[in-house]
Structure formats: C-alpha cells, structure tokens
C-alpha cells in the first residue's frame, strides 16, 4: 500500500517545492540580490561583514588606537603587515615608550583572513568595505594606515 502513499507524498513534496520557487518568482522584482554595479555606484552600500581591506580608524583629533604591540604583524600568515616603530618620550610620564611610526599594510599580499583584526588587543584595526582596489601600479597597494602626525588615543593602554 505504500506504493500509493509514495505517489501521494511525491506529488505533495514536489508541489511544496514549486510553491517555494513560485513565491520567489513573484517577489523577485523587489528582492533581487543582483547589484547593477557600475550603474548604482553612488548608492551602493556594501554589507557590514564584507572584507574589503584592513583599515585603521582615526577619531577627529587624528588619534588611533594602535599601541604598536606588533601582535598583528606576528599573526599575519603572509607578512602583509609591517610595523615601523620607534621609542619616544611619553609627554605625561616622561618615560621612554614604544609607539608606531608607520603601520605599513600591503593590500596586494592580504588574503583577508582576519587574523590581524582578531588578535589586536585594542581593536585598532578593522574591516573596510572598499572593494574597488584594481590599480595599474601595484606599489599603490602598499598603504600606510596611520595618518601622518597621528598619535595614540589616550587611555587605550590602560
């Protein structure tokens, strides 16, 4: 008797499947996932979890959160990050202290694995959503992430 119930089940499940795709077909105009990219370049907003490049956000006083601990440099499997650091005098305490001179990031070598961002103890770096990274000269892909004359945000190290 399972012969007929098999047929019934079969038809029922097929119809369920067709109703799902049928619904998609009707609503596809509103819900299309395709972005018509160069046309909507102005309004296109990449989603939050998109991994475009590593950036270092600065606040309005040109301060970043990077202490120069070099953990990201060690964590990176590709040697993408190079931290050029220096010892400088801290203004408040007067002691000698490590601080970054240049945070060099070779975008061309980055695999977007995210280890550097996970490992950073002070959340100094994060994902940027820019994806238009094609260039004619690859030296432009080597970037210095900290802005010129920027300094460490006070209180980050505590």
């Amino acid at each position, binding site marked *: 008797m399972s012969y007929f119930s098999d*047929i019934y089940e079969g038809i029922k499940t*097929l119809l369920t*499947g*067709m109703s*799902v*795709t*049928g619904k*998609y*077909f009707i609503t*596809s*105009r509103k*819900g*299309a*996932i*395709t972005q*018509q990219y160069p046309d909507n370049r102005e309004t296109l907003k990449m989603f939050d979890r998109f991994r475009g490049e590593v950036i270092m956000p600065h606040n309005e006083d040109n301060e970043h959160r990077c202490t120069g601990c070099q953990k990201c440099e060690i964590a990176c499997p590709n040697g993408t990050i190079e931290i050029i650091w220096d010892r400088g005098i801290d203004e408040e305490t007067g002691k000698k202290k490590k601080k970054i001179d240049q945070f060099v990031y070779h975008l061309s070598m980055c695999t977007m694995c995210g280890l550097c961002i996970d490992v950073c103890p002070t959340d100094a770096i994060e994902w940027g959503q820019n994806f238009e990274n094609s260039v004619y000269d690859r030296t432009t892909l080597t970037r210095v992430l900290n802005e010129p004359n920027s300094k460490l945000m006070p209180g980050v190290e505590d």
Partner: protein
Amino acid sequence: MILLSITENIHNWLFSVMPAEVASIVEMVLIAVVYLTVFAVAGLFLVLLERRVAAWFQLRIGPNRVGYQGLLQTMADAIKLLTKELVGTDRADKFLYNLAPYFVIITALMALAVIPFSQEFHAFDINIGIFFLIAISSIGVIGILLGGWSSNNKFAMIGAMRSGVQTISYELSVGLSLLTMVVITGTLQLSEIIEIQKSGWLIVQGHIPAVIAFMVFMISGTAETNRAPFDMVEAESELGAGFHTEYSGMKFAYFFLAEFINMFIIAAIAATVFFGGWLSPFGITESIPELGVFWFLIKTMVLVFLMMWFRWTFPRLRVDQLLTLEWKYLLPINLVNIVLMAVLVWLNLTIRL
C-alpha cells in the same frame, strides 16, 4: 485572413508561371524557409525567456543589457557562435560527428510541420499526426547518440548512453499518454482532434483520466527533452556538458536550439491535445479566427513556463531513480489509465458541453 490571401496569391502566381510539379516543390521549399527562419528566431527568444525566468526564480535579474531589457542578447550570442571556430577532437568519427547536430535540429523542425498553429497556419495536416509526432521526436535521440559516440570523449559517451536509456524509457509514457487521449478523439489527425474539442477541451471531456494523462505527459515530455530534473544527458556537474562536450560554435548552437524547439514542441502538443490548441476558451473569440495563433501561443507559453518552473525547482534525478520513476510508476499508472479511459468512453461518461 490577410496572411491567408497573401499565401493564396503566391500559390496562384507560382502555379501560373511554372508547371504544377515544379510549383509545388518551390512552394514546399518556401514554406520550409519560412518555418526555418521563424523558428530559429523563436528558439532564440525562448532561450532568452528561459534565462530571464531562471533569473527571476533565483532572485537575480538576468540578461538586460543588450537591447531593451536584453531582448537582443541571444541574437548577439548566436552571431558570436557563428563566428567561432569549429574545434573537433582528434580521432573523432568525423562524418558522424558532423552529421549529429543536423539530425537533432532537423527532427525538431520536422515535428513543427504538423503542429496546427491556427486553422490556416498548418503546414502539413496528415491523418497520422500524433503518430508522426511520436515517431519523429524519437529520431532526435539518434543524433544525440551519434554525437556522443563519435566525439571520442568519455563524458560525451556516458551522456549519450544515458540519453539512450532515458529516451527509450520515457518514449513509452509519452506515447501511451497521448494514446489515452486518442481513445477519446478516435482520430490521430491533429486538425480533427481540435475539431472535436469544440465541445469542450479534452482535459475537461476526459476529466480524471485526462488529468492523469496530462501529468504523465508533462513529466515524460520533460524527460524527452532532456531538461532538468531529467538532464542526466548533460549533467554539468558530472559530465562537463554531456553529449555535446566536444561541440563548439554553430554545431553547439544547433543542439542548444533543438533543445528549446523540442521544449516548445512538447508544450505545443500538450496545448493541442489537452487544451484545445487554437480554440479560444469557451469560444469567446470564435468569430475572429485570426486570434487562433494568439490563443495557441498563450497556451503553449504557459506550458513552457511550467516546464521552466520544473527545471529551476527540482534537483536532478539519479539514473536508477529515473528508471524507477518510469518503469514502476509512470508506466503502470499509464496502462491502468488507458483502460480507465476506455471504460469511460465505452460507458459514455465523458463530459460534453
């Protein structure tokens, strides 16, 4: 009517300027050329339709750049394919290899000849219409077998063998489900089948067995055209492109076009046999016979859409599942159905309006 008077004029003119035998041959050639151009273009637009419909099913947009809403996309593709080099394999059986695509496309176009598009637009109205359709549609598989065999490629070979298994099995169901309807009509001639449906479409006249026959026909018809979920012949993820792996350029385009024309044919047969062909629903436009083509195309397109819907919903079957479906389910159901229909006709239980 205007079309009819034009063809009438051409006919008279041809017979006036040359002897009757030559004139009729010229006429046949002319009709063939018209059919070829119309259906090559129609096939291209079916490809476009398929791509847009597929895109909508998958929440995409689909080709919309070439021409208004991408209307010229497949034309451009065809022109691109025409200019491509025809690459063949080493040690392929050149003669059969080159012959195969023509087998497929010619049988597809031959089947179109007997399909009545409207009362007048009907190239070849033979008294064995349905029989001819069943016969012709199974010749196409020879082209697929030849193509797979001769291209000296294991994927093509496996695809061709699968196609043999599949078409031979499902041919039975296509034939039997159409025979179920022939039990009602009592004729194989397509124009008469439509004539009979003036007192109700066959799917209404035959009610339960007709609906079952229609379902069986749609399933096995989809299998006949080697479309998903029965596309084991091509099975991109398993066999590259199956039997046409080694074909390129225009020969590939022939296979591709034939698939879409076959899909159109299956839908057209279903529309003719089950849904009254060019008859309007409830005879609302009976006074305007020009609308026949319109109704016919609407019905066919709805069924084509149904087949596209199948394709973009169901996953591909395994070979053993395919054979189980045919030999354990469709065929016995079909045989019982044909008896049921015979009893129905015998006891006069069909619904006639």
